[in-house]
């Protein structure tokens, strides 16, 4: 009974609360800039409005362009069934689920990129080219970080890794955990197209990565993409929180609210980073991602000492 409750609450929380993360980030940024800013629930209003609008399709596009938002949203929804919140199993947890999650994200990338190329716009081609470059570097960082965590906790699924984090581990092996956290934070920023990798609020198509790839989507298609971007942010934040917080010491009634709160803290931190930093020059972004790879390898080396 308890297990089933956890299994249902986890994806439900993600699906309901994910757009709020974007609202929180905008709220933090507005406060930093001394503006009043949008209401916290603005992303929900946006989604609602977009879902009820009509769509315009470019005459260059084919069925690929129409399939893209649907495939992206389906795949990301599937990932929300894999990543646990707090501890306990999810509906789709099995040994090796982290590989499936990473590759579902790869499927999303594949479709977003070909969807962008389908419009024939050179700006969208530019965004697609950058997306594949940066994510090809973020991918090894993510995998090595997961290998380090797998070694640290001797388990190969998200739910087991999250459950194995204990306060004692922080006392004895904080180096690994800290380095993995640093690597995952960089991966989170890169995969979700946040500053310093990409600026979601820039006004110039030449400098965008993610936003420029979905320039031509409108109506429900755009709503799907917006929602999947929010879910993706939620997923990475949940992974980060799961790798850091020792959930095993709490009963599940507490651990789930605590991790939800922690996810929102992550979004506040992202907002702070975005308010204080500028976007890196695009030629410098690979260095940042190399750093993530290097940190993940360092974390892995630290797992050898015990």
């Amino acid at each position, binding site marked *: 009974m308890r297990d089933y409750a956890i299994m249902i609450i986890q994806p439900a929380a993600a699906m309901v609360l994910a757009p709020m993360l974007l609202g929180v980030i905008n709220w933090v940024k507005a406060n930093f800039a001394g503006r009043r800013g949008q209401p916290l629930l603005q992303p929900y209003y946006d989604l609602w409005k977009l*879902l009820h*609008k*009509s*769509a*315009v*399709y*470019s*005459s*260059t*596009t*084919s*069925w*690929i362009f129409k399939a893209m938002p*649907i495939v992206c*949203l*389906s795949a990301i*929804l*599937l990932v929300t069934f894999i990543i646990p919140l707090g501890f306990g199993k999810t509906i*789709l947890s*099995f*040994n*090796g*689920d982290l*590989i*499936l999650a*990473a*590759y*579902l994200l*790869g499927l999303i*990338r*594949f479709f977003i990129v*070909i969807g962008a*190329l*389908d*419009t*024939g*716009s*050179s*700006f969208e*081609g*530019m965004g*697609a*080219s950058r997306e*594949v*470059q940066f*994510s*090809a*570097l973020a991918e*090894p960082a993510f*995998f*090595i970080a997961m*290998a380090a965590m797998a*070694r640290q906790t001797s388990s*190969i699924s998200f739910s087991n890794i999250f459950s194995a984090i204990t306060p004692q581990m922080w006392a004895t092996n904080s180096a690994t955990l800290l380095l993995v956290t640093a690597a995952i934070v960089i991966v989170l920023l890169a995969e979700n197209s946040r500053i310093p990798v990409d600026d979601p609020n820039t006004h110039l198509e030449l400098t965008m990565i993610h936003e420029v790839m979905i320039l031509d989507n409108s*109506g*429900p298609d755009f709503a*799907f993409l917006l929602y999947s971007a929010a879910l993706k942010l939620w997923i990475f934040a949940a992974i980060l929180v799961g790798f850091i917080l020792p959930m095993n010491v709490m009963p599940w009634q507490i651990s789930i609210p605590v991790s939800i709160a922690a996810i929102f803290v992550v979004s506040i931190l992202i907002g702070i980073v975005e308010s204080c930093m500028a976007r890196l020059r*695009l030629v410098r972004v690979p260095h940042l991602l190399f750093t993530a*790879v290097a940190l993940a*390898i360092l974390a892995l080396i630290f797992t050898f000492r015990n």
Partner: protein
Amino acid sequence: MIILLAGLGFIIFTGIASLFIKDGKTCTRFGAAGVIIGSLAAVTTAIKVLFSGETISFKIPWQVPYGSFYIVIDSISALFLIIVFMACSIAAVYGCGYMAGYKQRRLSAPTFFFNMLVASMAMVVMARNGVLFLVVWEIMSLASYFLVTFDHEHESVRQAGWIYIVATHIGTAFLLAFFVCLGKYNGTMDFDNVNVFGKASSVLFLLALVGFGTKAGIMPMHVWLPEAHPAAPSHISAVMSGVMIKMGVYGIIRTISILPEIQLWWGWLLVILGIVSGLLGILFALAQHDIKRMLAYSSVENIGIILIGLGLGLIGLAGGSYILAVLGFAGALLHIINHSLFKSLLFMGAGAVVHSTETRRMDLLGGLIKRMPLTAGAFVIGAIAICGLPPLNGFIGEFLLYYSSFAAALSKDIQIVAPAVAAIAALAMIGGFAVAAFTKVFGIVFLGEPRTSAAANAHEADKAMIVSMWLLAVLCILIGITAPLVLPVIISVVMQIVPAEYEIAVLPFNQPDKMLWWIVISSIALFILISVLAMIRRNLLKNKTVTAGPTWDCGYAAPTPRIQYTSSSFSQPIVDMFKNAMYLKRNEVKIDELFPKQAQFESHTPDVSNEYIYRPVFKWIDRLTGKMQWLQYGVVQMYVLYIAITLIILLVWKL
């Protein structure tokens, strides 16, 4: 056994008979029918062996010294036989449509050589006598050489054929040495029981690695591959890339399975070679402008992935890690099957494009999805599969490799953990670049607006070509969905390579098939979600006017198809990042004034090993003596570096 030999005989017979048929169309159809009927007959035996697990052998003496007509079908051979017969039959169907384009030519010769190629490949995986093996190996090489040089009126094709025949014979020379050594140590040229131990077995392994590796296209020995594959007609490229290079992999697997002693460093060597082939292969693929050349480099990459799997298996075998051994080999074998499907499919798709637009340059194409919808549909399935993305078959193979590496990464022994982690990192990176490479091919060739009139006037491919491509696409989906049922068959083949006690790794306790069931469930869930969301969108848009307009031009008012991103510009950031590793030659006019007149960008990536390894040796030695001067530079940093290197060497040597 009789049925199988009869099937092979039928393939050869129709090949010879086709030499006497004048009409091109009838001739290819006759040959293809021979291949299909013969394959259907022969494949039954292979399937029987694969599922029953028994071994069939057949031996008759032969006049040739040391030779005997000794063939054995065990489950390894059976698996490869099924790949050969399946892929070649589908390619034969495709060939009927493709060769119809050559109206003025007599098509007897290619038909004959194609049938010989199929029969010889089948014989390669069955032969158990060194002399017999070398004979059929040579027939395979020569048949494929004549097929590569089919368009021999082009200078570039003759050049490619020349490189191929030289490279393949260098490989054969090593194989000759391998079999001579094997025969000498063993006392007989039949190689089913080998009693070689110690240093000798390492020598044998290295000889086999170079000899078979040349055929397989492992990175430093791959030079012939990007030349020969684009030159051949497309169904031949499909067979060569999908099946023939796997004969090299078969050779390596067979060598592993017959040598009684396994060394740990063999596995390390294979993993390192695999990582190098995989990474450099996909990077070179990304840098190409020619669609078939790009696919050829991608074959190098996939051979790299297969080698990583074999290397992990060997490490597991030598280091006593059961799960790494079994799942590493299983991943490699599954990837061999998968690659033979999706690479054939992609080459056929590329062939359909070339057939219809008469160019292989991606930058001249575009927008073909509107003109060739069926080809594009099959091609995108192949592209998703080759990137190893769920829910298709490519993911299953890569999943097994990842899973075995993750499981091995938990072990205590650093000699196992280090290659496992290296494999994880390399697979992740290869996966990322593969997405880049195949979104590029599909996006530039099939999507957007046509860049030239050749692309604008393209037409859909012939019916035979469409059918064969979709057959392969359906197989890709099918293996993805039925993975848990395929796995036990693969495992039964792996048990031929590893000792029987390794079966514990796949007993219900470790549940590898349960994981695959989970993956299948999520694939089905993915399909359900996609259809539900599609329905939701349809309902949302039902009572509204959906309009069509031009692509948003970002304020630039006069866009033409030529300002679209090209394959060079798409891959430029990645290629630029690795320019030191890839020997990139750029031709660029930098913009340096306020109102620039004309700017252009062009890049070439000559093959590294071509440029660096296969240059005439004497030239290199000549330079070497001259190069010794660099030791004395007078740069302070260099001297400190010498000191540092000396210190480190001393440290390593003393400790």
